[in-house]
C-alpha cells in the first residue's frame, strides 16, 4: 500500500481502493463528427511523460468519480477533485 490518493471525501487512501478509467482531458466529439475524429478520441493517446489528468473511481470507498492530476514521471499527485466539481469549474472557465 505505497501510493496514497487523497480523496476529497474520504481522505488519504491506498491506490488499491480505486480503479482508473482514462484521460480526463479529452473532450467527446460531436455525434456527427467524422470517423477520423472519433478514432482519435477512442484510440489515440499521447502517453506523455509528466502531468496527466485522469478519471479515477473510488470504487471501494465513497464510489465517487474523481479527477486526479499526477505526474507519470515523479508519481507526485498534484490534485484530486470530485469529477462533478471539476466539470463545473471547467464549464465556467
Amino acid at each position: 500500500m505505497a501510493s496514497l490518493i487523497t480523496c476529497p471525501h474520504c481522505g488519504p487512501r491506498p491506490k488499491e481502493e480505486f480503479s482508473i478509467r482514462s484521460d480526463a482531458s479529452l473532450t467527446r466529439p460531436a455525434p456527427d463528427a467524422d470517423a477520423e475524429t472519433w478514432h482519435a478520441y477512442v484510440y489515440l493517446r499521447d502517453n506523455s511523460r509528466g502531468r496527466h489528468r485522469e478519471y479515477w473511481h473510488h470504487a471501494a470507498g465513497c464510489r465517487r468519480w474523481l479527477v486526479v492530476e499526477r505526474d507519470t514521471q515523479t508519481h507526485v499527485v498534484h490534485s484530486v477533485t470530485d469529477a462533478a466539481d471539476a466539470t463545473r469549474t471547467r464549464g465556467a472557465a
Partner: protein
Amino acid sequence: MAEIVLSHRAALAGVATGRFGAAFDSSRSLTLTALPEGHVLHLLAAPGAVPHAGAITAAGGGTLRAYAPGQWFVVGDERLTASQKAEIAGRLAGVADVVDTSHGRVRMALSGAAVERVLAKGTAVDLAPSAFPVGRSATTLVGHISVQITRTGEQSFELMVLRGFAESLWDELIGMAREFGVEAVGPA
C-alpha cells in the same frame, strides 16, 4: 397456486465459532460477534440536504451513518415493519430517498484492546481515537473486501459488508486477530 413461504437464514449461520489463536485473555483478546440482521436503509439525499437523525429514531429507525457525499445508512438491530419504513420515508420526504437494503448487507462487531491493531492489518484508514472518534464511519478496503467501518466505542467497531462477502470477512477477521486470541460468536 401453492403458497410460497420464505424462511430467513442468517448470512453468518454456520460460520466458524469458538476460540482461535493465542490463549484467550480478556485484557488483550478480541471478540467477534454476528449482529442481528435488523435493518439497513440506504439514504440518497437531495443536493445539500442532510437527514435529521432525530426524525429517523422517532419513527423507529436506528443510527445514522455517513457513507459518501449525500449518502447515509440507517442501521439497527430491529426488523422494521413496512409501515415503520413508510413512516421513515415520509419524515425524510424532500430530504432523502430511502432504499431498504436490509437483505443485502450484514453487520458484525469486533471489540477488544487490540481492535485497532487488528483492523490496521486490513485498512490504511487512521483508526486512532483522535482521528476516528466514536460514531465516525469510513468505507474502505479490508484486505480485498469493501467494508463500512464504524467506531461504536473506545475499543469496539462495527463492520458492515455486502451479504455475499460476510463469511469471507468473518474468516479474515479471525485470521487477523489470532495473534491476540479471538472468540467468535455466531448469530443468535
